Each structure stands twice: as structure tokens, then as C-alpha cells.
């Protein structure tokens, strides 16, 4: 027997991946529940309990991480990071998981999916998301992206009853595979150019001349393309409207919030971290991706009558706004992270509300379906309005502050034209978000039906709305946290 290879696990490493473990254990718990019980009722109850415990555990373990002086720590054989940045996204994903459990339940059942199956798949996807923010080498990054995507390919086609659902799932899978291939190819090129996949090593090489290597830059370009696919930025966005529309709403909500945030968490970490020195070489590309995303996303949403499609296009635009932060300095990076948080909270709330509207099996599809909602359901309409106003970027919501930060950093680093374009396109954004608000509050011929909301749903929606407002009225505290979080990236 040869000498045993020591496991690269250091004390404290397990705490550092606590959230990840919590979610994976929850996922395993779901599977166990599915096998252990036969009665649907019990299955559902235990699914909910385990899911909530998992999400709570993820949040608690995230908070237990000792951040120390704020510097990044490498764990598990330098495969993952542990720092304030990961804690920040851990909390965001834990919150999303809890919100998904509470808010999507009705929609899951409406789509004839079994909650236990849905949430076990979702939990694996969440595990991937928890990985994206902490990936410390390109392989971890790739694994994270694949782990979060695979369950979603299944989930997208989960509602076996609808033809568009199956089409969407297949489309998502095919295009996702292509994107993965591009990403992997980029990683290969990067490895070829530097001989390393390790972020620290990559960063060192890139800043000391490596960025002049065509191989490295080509690799960077392709990795950027792969991540842009997940984030839904132009020109890698074309799957979003079809897939968002075709998938069950609960899955769409997951894509619009979790997947997007995870893609951004990975992209921001990679681009503002090891690739920071090379970013100026590709900033023209980034500029075009941002500009096109804002224009295409907003213009595409403008004439949509389907609410899910509208939100899909608008999510493209938001990807543009968020990536704009990466063109700036460290404040811009912080702005991007801040925007991501606000966007995720607002969209989680918006989809949370949308999922409750509907009649029996049918969901509300078009903007006109929401006519008269405020008259019949004033409180939920008010909440929906808050989320929409935040997405539109109207004070006193967080969306306004987030846009303010992003545009501000763009202007400070000389991208005045881009900031101007951002402002102009967000005017289009106001137009289509307000169409929904107008439908709800100013038209009264419709009679939209609302599914019954449990007290927990009200609490979660209320908390989301309150946090969206709080981030608009008192942005200071989170802004400071975000700023110190991005410091650890470099």
C-alpha cells in the first residue's frame, strides 16, 4: 500500500461550504421523503418542512463563516473561495430558495407537478448556484454552471401536459449544451494559453503579460459568451423569451431569479477577479453586449402582451444594466452586485405575485388579463406595483438606487454615452412596466381570479416588498456591505 493521499480538507472548510451542504442534504431529504411516504399529503408536508429547514440552515451556516479581515480564503484544495462575496450570494440564494418554496407551491401544483419532485430537482440546481459565487478555478466554475443547469433542463419540460413546455425544454437543453460547449472550449483555450485553470494563477499571469496572448483573450471571449448565455445577454439571449414563456411559471421564476443571479455571481467574480487586468482589452465587446442587451431587451418587451415573455425580455435588459457595472471601477462592480440583489428581490416578488393569479389550471397570460386586478385584490396589486416600480427604476424603490449606482459608475469612468443609452432605454422600461400597473389600477372591466394566499405567502411577499422599498430608502447599509464584498474579489 502506498502512502495515503491526504484529503485537502482543512479545519473550517466544512463551515465554509455549509450552505452548499445544507442544500444538498435537503435535496437528498426530498428524495428520501418521496420514497418514505406514500400519501401525497405527508410527502408535501415533509417536503415543505425539509425545504424550509434547508434554506434556513443555508442562511445560518452562511452567516457563521468567519470573514476575518475581509480577504478571500481558498478552501478545499484551492477549488473554492470563502469570503464576504460568497456569504452575500449565499444569503441571496437561501432567501430565494425559501421564497420559491413558499411562493411557487401553488404554481407547482397548478402545473400538475409533484412538489417533492420539483423541489428536489430545484434543490440540486440551487446547489449549483451556491457553487457559482465561490468557484476558484475554471473547473469549479464549469461544474457549478452544469450543476445548476441540468436539473433545470428537466424542470423546464416537467409539465408534461403542454406542448410548448416540451418544446421550451428541448430548446433550452440544446442551446444550453451549445453554450456549455462554448464555455468549455473557452476554458480549454485559457488553459492552453496559461497552463492553469486556477483563478489566482490566472490573475497573476494575465496581469503580467498574459493578457497579450491571443489564446488567453480568445479563451476569455468564449468564457464570456458562455456566461452571457446563462445571464441572458445579447446576442446570447435568444432562448430566454421562448423558454421563459414555455416553462411552468415556477420554473421560469427560478430561471429569472436564481439562474440569472448565479450566472452574474460567476461572471462578476471571474471578470472582476482574475480577468480584471484583461478587462480593458475586451471592454469594447462588453460595451456592445451591454448596449445591445439594453436596447433589445427593452425594445422586445415593449410590444409584448404575454406577461412572462415581457418579463423575459426585460430580464435581458436588466442583464445589460448589471453588466454595465463591470465597465466601471470597483464601485461599478459593487453597483453590479447591488443591482443583482435588488433585481432578484424584485423579480422574485413579481413572479411570486404572478403565480397566484389564475383560474383553476389556467394562469393569467396577457397584460390585459390583469385588468381590474386592483379593484378586486388591492393588496396584492399594491405589492405587485411595488415590484414593478422597482424593476422600472422609479424611486423610492431599490431599483432606482441600483440604476443610479450603475449609471453613476459608468459616468465616472467615462462611459457617458452608455449611461445615456441606459437612461433612454429605461424609459421604454417604464412604459411597459406601467402598462401592467395601468391594467391593474386604471382599468376595471376585467375580473382576474386570485388563488388563495397562505399567511406565509403574505409574509414573504410583504418582506420582499419591504426590502425592495428599504433598499430604495436606505441604500447605505447594503451598499457598504457590497463595497467590502467586492474588495475581496481582486
Amino acid at each position, binding site marked *: 500500500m502506498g502512502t495515503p493521499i491526504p484529503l485537502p480538507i482543512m479545519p473550517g472548510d466544512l463551515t465554509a461550504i455549509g450552505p452548499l451542504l445544507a442544500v444538498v442534504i435537503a435535496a437528498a431529504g426530498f428524495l428520501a421523503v418521496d420514497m418514505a411516504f406514500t400519501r401525497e399529503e405527508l410527502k408535501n408536508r415533509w417536503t415543505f418542512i425539509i425545504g424550509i429547514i434547508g434554506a434556513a440552515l443555508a442562511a445560518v451556516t452562511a452567516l457563521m463563516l468567519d470573514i476575518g479581515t475581509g480577504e478571500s480564503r481558498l478552501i478545499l484544495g484551492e477549488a473554492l473561495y470563502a469570503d464576504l462575496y460568497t456569504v452575500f450570494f449565499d444569503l441571496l440564494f437561501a432567501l430565494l430558495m425559501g421564497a420559491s418554496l413558499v411562493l411557487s407551491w401553488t404554481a407547482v401544483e397548478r402545473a400538475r407537478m409533484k412538489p417533492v419532485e420539483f423541489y428536489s430537482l430545484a434543490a440540486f440546481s440551487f446547489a449549483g448556484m451556491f457553487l457559482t459565487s465561490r468557484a476558484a478555478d475554471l473547473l469549479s466554475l464549469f461544474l457549478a454552471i452544469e450543476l445548476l443547469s441540468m436539473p433545470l433542463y428537466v424542470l423546464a419540460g416537467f409539465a408534461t401536459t403542454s406542448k410548448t413546455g416540451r*418544446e421550451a425544454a*428541448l*430548446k433550452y437543453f*440544446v*442551446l444550453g449544451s*451549445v*453554450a456549455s460547449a*462554448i464555455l468549455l472550449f473557452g476554458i480549454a483555450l485559457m488553459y492552453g494559453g496559461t497552463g492553469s485553470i486556477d483563478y489566482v494563477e490566472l490573475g497573476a499571469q494575465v496581469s503580467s503579460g498574459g493578457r*497579450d496572448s*491571443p489564446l488567453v*483573450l*480568445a479563451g*476569455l*471571449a*468564449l468564457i*464570456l*459568451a458562455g456566461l*452571457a*448565455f446563462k445571464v441572458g445577454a445579447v*446576442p*446570447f439571449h*435568444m*432562448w430566454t*423569451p*421562448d423558454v421563459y414563456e414555455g416553462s411552468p411559471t415556477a420554473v421560469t421564476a427560478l430561471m429569472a431569479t436564481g439562474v440569472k443571479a448565479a450566472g452574474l455571481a460567476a461572471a462578476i467574480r471571474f471578470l472582476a477577479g482574475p480577468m480584471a487586468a484583461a478587462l*480593458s*482589452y*475586451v*471592454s*469594447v*465587446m462588453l460595451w456592445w453586449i451591454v448596449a445591445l442587451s439594453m*436596447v*433589445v431587451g*427593452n*425594445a*422586445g418587451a*415593449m*410590444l*409584448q402582451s404575454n406577461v412572462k415573455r415581457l418579463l423575459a*425580455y426585460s430580464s435581458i435588459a436588466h442583464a445589460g444594466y448589471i453588466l454595465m457595472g463591470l465597465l466601471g471601477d470597483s464601485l461599478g462592480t459593487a453597483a453590479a452586485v447591488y443591482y443583482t440583489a435588488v433585481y432578484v428581490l424584485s423579480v422574485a416578488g413579481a413572479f411570486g405575485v404572478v403565480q397566484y393569479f389564475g383560474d383553476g389550471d389556467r394562469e393569467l397570460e396577457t397584460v390585459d388579463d390583469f385588468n381590474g386586478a386592483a379593484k378586486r385584490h388591492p393588496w396584492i396589486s399594491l405589492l405587485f406595483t411595488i415590484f414593478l416600480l422597482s424593476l422600472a427604476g422609479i424611486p423610492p424603490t431599490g431599483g432606482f438606487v441600483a440604476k443610479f449606482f450603475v449609471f453613476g459608475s459608468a459616468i465616472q*469612468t*467615462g462611459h457617458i454615452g452608455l449611461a445615456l443609452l441606459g437612461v433612454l432605454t429605461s424609459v*421604454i422600461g417604464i412604459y411597459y412596466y406601467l402598462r401592467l400597473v395601468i391594467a391593474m389600477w386604471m382599468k376595471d372591466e376585467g375580473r382576474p381570479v386570485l388563488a388563495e394566499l397562505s399567511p406565509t405567502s403574505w409574509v414573504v411577499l410583504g418582506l420582499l416588498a419591504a426590502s425592495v422599498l428599504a433598499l430604495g430608502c436606505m441604500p447605505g447599509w447594503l451598499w457598504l456591505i457590497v463595497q467590502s464584498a467586492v474588495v475581496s474579489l481582486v
Partner: protein
Amino acid sequence: MTGETLLALVVGFPLLGAVFNGFFGRFHGRRLAGYLACGAMAMAFLSALGAVKDLAGLDPQVRTIHKHLYTWIDASTFKVDMALTLDPLSAVMILVVTGVGFLIHVYSIGYMAHDDGRVRYFTYLNLFVFFMLMLVLGSSLPVMFLGWEGVGLCSYLLIGFWFDDIAKAVAGKKAFLVNRIGDMFFVLGMFLLFWTYHAVGSGSLAFADMQANAELIQAAKIGGVAVTSLAAFCLFLGATGKSAQIPLFVWLPDAMAGPTPVSALIHAATMVTAGVYMVARMNFLFEMSPGVMSLVAWVGALTALFAATIGMAATDIKKVLAYSTISQLGYMFVAVGVGSYVAGIFHLVTHAFFKGLLFLGAGSVIHGVTTQDIRQMGGVRHKMPWTFWTFLVGTWAIAGLPPFAGFFSKDEILFHAYAGPHGSVPLWFIGYLTGAMTAFYMFRLFALVFLGKTRMSKKEYGKVHESPATMTVPLAILAGLSAIGGLMGLPHAFHMPHLLGDWLAPVFPEFHVAAGAGTELGLMAASVAAAIAGSLLALYFYFKKGYVPVPDNGKASLPASVARDKFYIDEVYDGLVVMPMKAIARFLSATVDAAGVDRVASGWLPGLAGWISKGVTALQNGNTQRYAMALFAGAVALIVYVSLFGVRVPLA
């Protein structure tokens, strides 16, 4: 409770009243709204008394109570605290505002008893008091400005209270717009001060800080003009708006469209005196610019004379009082302009008593008679004894006849205008002449309304009735105050203490009068003689002889008709300012906006966006191969870009 807490309560109660009536008024009903508003005012008045008592307990040298509520603005070097400061000057003001304000609130219960909009009315009224208290208690210029704007807003809301009458809504608008002109200069003055103080290292606009650092900015100049003068000038122009002085007085007569208690509270006793208060508050600034000081005095004197002339010809009971208010405010500006801030504030207080009384009396008359035209009144005395006697006290006081309040305060102003260091004989003479005219037009009003035979039809006269106790009791209290209010500022010549002057002494710079008691007594005798002459003349014409002013379209002598038509000032402003403005506005709205901006903003741009939108959606045909193609094309584009330019063109 400590003085600080009480201070917060003083502003807190009216705000609470306004919020409560504003948000829940439609649930708890109209009757309760009035009581709530009065209760809030009573509590505010008691709190004010308590706070002032605490203040009086302090040593005169350190007589201030400061209450920091929260930090309002904190932008690096510019910081404004939402803070209240009670010092002898603001103490006088809050007692007047809450005290007279309370009486007028009580009176309003009776006056507005039949109005459906009572909840709204009392909401606005409480809100006004809140802002007025912020104005006088604010410890810095920005907080004062907050109150300044707030009272302007409430004034607008209350002038146009009966907004379904277009003329009244227009009057509200006029008041608001004219005030905006003044407000703009207030802001300019504030900016100038901030800019100048900031340049010398003190970004604070708190009154205490500005006063302490006043010497630092004394030498600052813009284009050869001292900044202190420029700022004082701007602030004074702001004051001419709020306090209805030349050239911005035109809104006040129209403001009489509001309910009469509003005229009493806002357009006589409190808000319109804000300008005087502001000049007194900023005395350290005005003292540094003697030129502006004499401008203040002269504008005040000319306004006093000018408004009195119109007052002699006016035929609407409230308009007479409105012009009289403008005229009396002119006196106050004469006082502060010659540096006699105590006399200015003294007259402010007594004026609040007697003009509040007169307006409420007028309201009582209107309530009973249902017309405002004094040519159609007469003989009301017998029907409304309470109103009659109290109105007589008010008339007596404003006419400057001893021993009522107006006599003391007005004579102090005239004496200081004559013998003070900034005073002069012409200044005094204008004031003196105005005094005689005041006595004349006030007794003219009094005689035409109350004395002689009635000019109403028998049926109308039969309906005239005395007002309820909620209205007459405040009248009686104000009459008492108008009668004895002068005791707080007895002349030096009497060798009695000037209570108000001693109380205010720590706030103002010392004021020396060169002339002795002989001069003072002489001037006093002269003005009493003038007042008596004016009163008797009026009584002779309008009571003994029974003259009645001619109808509006009737023939009158040229001077009389010019005065009756208010010297055509409104028409002149209309031609010089309003018409050109309207022409510019029409051009902007019809040509620039409709044909230019609108065509681009609501024609071309949405068209462009829609065109892009159609293009984007057309690309999105659901074909997976096409989507994959786009993906590849994007990736290839990135690669091509990087390999062609990436290495050679580092950006940023």
C-alpha cells in the same frame, strides 16, 4: 417636561392635528374635526407657555433652548439639522402664533359651522400653524425656508378654499405665483450666503453660526458689490413677497377671497409678518449693509402710505382691512429698517391682536349681514352689540389713539424713524401722514358699517343677527389684548420699563436714540392730534353727514377714482409681466412643445422604439437552429474582435 420636549410638542400638536384630521377626518366627521383642531392648538399654546417659562428661567445671556430633531441634509460639507431654537424673539412669535391662532381656531368653529368642507379647512389650518411654527422656530435658514414655503402652500390652499368659485381659485393662484417671485429671491439669498460662508470655511446656515461668523464674510464681494448687501437685498425681496410690500403686495387684497378667519390668521396676524420676523432674525446681516437697511425703511414707508391711500377708497370691508394690513406691515418694515427691531416686533404683536380682532369682527359682520360691501351696511351696531364694541376697540387701537395697543407700538416706530440713527424727518413724516390716514379710513369703515341708519332693505336688516359665542368670545379676548397690549412696551418718556424691549434685548444689537424725552412727548402729541383729526373727519363725513361712497361705476373725483382702482397697479403688472409671460408660454407650448418636442418625443422616438421592437420580435421566430446560429455568430464575433483588435487596442 423639559423645555426641549415642550418645544417639540409645540410644533408636534398642530402637525398631529393636521395629520389626524387629514387622514381620518372623513371617518370621525366634521364636528369633531373642529374640536380636534382647537384641542391641538390649545395643547400647542400650553406647551409654548411652558417652553417660554423654561426659557425665562435661564440667564438672559444664554437664553436659548435648542431641540435637535434629526439631521435633515448631510452632504459632505453641507449639513442641515432639523432643529428648533427658542430664543426671546421666537418665544414672542410662538406665543402670538399659538395664542391668536387658538382663538381664531375657536372662532372658526362658529364661522364655518355650515360649511361642508370643515374637515379640509381645519386640516389646512392646523397644517398652516405647524409650518408657521417651523418658520419661526427653525434654527437655520433652510428650516425657516421649509416653513416659509409651507405657509405659502397653506395660504394658497386656504385662499382657494372655495375653489369651485373660479375667482377665488384664481386669487389663490395669484397669491402663490406672486409669492414664488419673492421665494426665488429668498432662495437666491440663501445660496449666496451658503456660497460665501462656505468659501470662508463655514458651510452652516444655522442662524447662530452665521451670526458668529458674520465678520468673516463682511469683505466678500461679487462684481464690486458686497455679498452681504446682495444677500440682504435678496432676502428682503423675499420678504416683500410674503409680507406684501411694494412691489409684490398685489396678492394680499385678492387673498381676501379665503374664509375670513383665514384672513385674520394668515393674512393679518401671522404669515404676512414672516418677512418682518425674517429681517429681525437676520439683523446681523442687515446691520452690515446700511444701504439695504434704508431701502427696507423706505419701501416700508412708501408701502404704508400707498396702501393707506387705497384703503381710504376701498368699499369692501375685507379689502379695507387688507390694505390696512399692507400699510401696517409697512410700519413694521420702517421699524426694522431703521434698526429698531424691538419696535418692529412690538408692532407685529399688537397688530396681531387688533388686526386679528378687526378681521374676526369683519367676519362676524359678514356672517350676520351676508354682504361685504360697506355701502350696503350701516346701523349694524344695534343688531350686533358684541361685534360693535369689540370692533370699536380694534378701530381705536389701529387708529393709534391712546391708551390702546396701537398707539404705543406705532408711536415707538414713529419716534425711532424720526430720531433713530438711521431715521430721518421725511421717513417720519410719511409715517405720520399715514397715521392720520389710518385713523380716517378705519373710522370711515367703522361708521359706514355700524353707525347711522341702515342702508339694507328691511327684510335684510331683519335677518342680521349677532354671532354665536364661539365667535364673540374670541372677539372679546382679542379686544382685551388690543386694549392692554401696549403695556408691554411703554415709552421711555414715561419712565416705565419697556418689558418687551428688555425681553428681546439679548437678541438684537443695541439701539440708541439721540433725542430725549421732550422730543418723544412732542411727537406723541402730534400723532395723537393727527389721529384724532383723522377720526373726527371720518366721523363727520360718514356719520354726521351720512356720506356713502359712490357706486363702482359712479363718477368720482380723479384722485378718488385712481385710488379706488388701486392705482391701476394690477393692470400695469398685467401688461408688463403677465401678458409677456403668457405670450412666451403660448409660444413654448404651441410651437416648441407641441410642434417640436412632442413630435420628436411622442412621435419619432416611440416610432423608433416600436420599429426596433418589431425587428427584435421578428428575429425571434422560435427556430432553434436560428437561435443556435445566433449563439455561434456571437461567439465568433467575439473571437474575431479579440484576434483583430483585442491585443492592439487596450481601452481605458
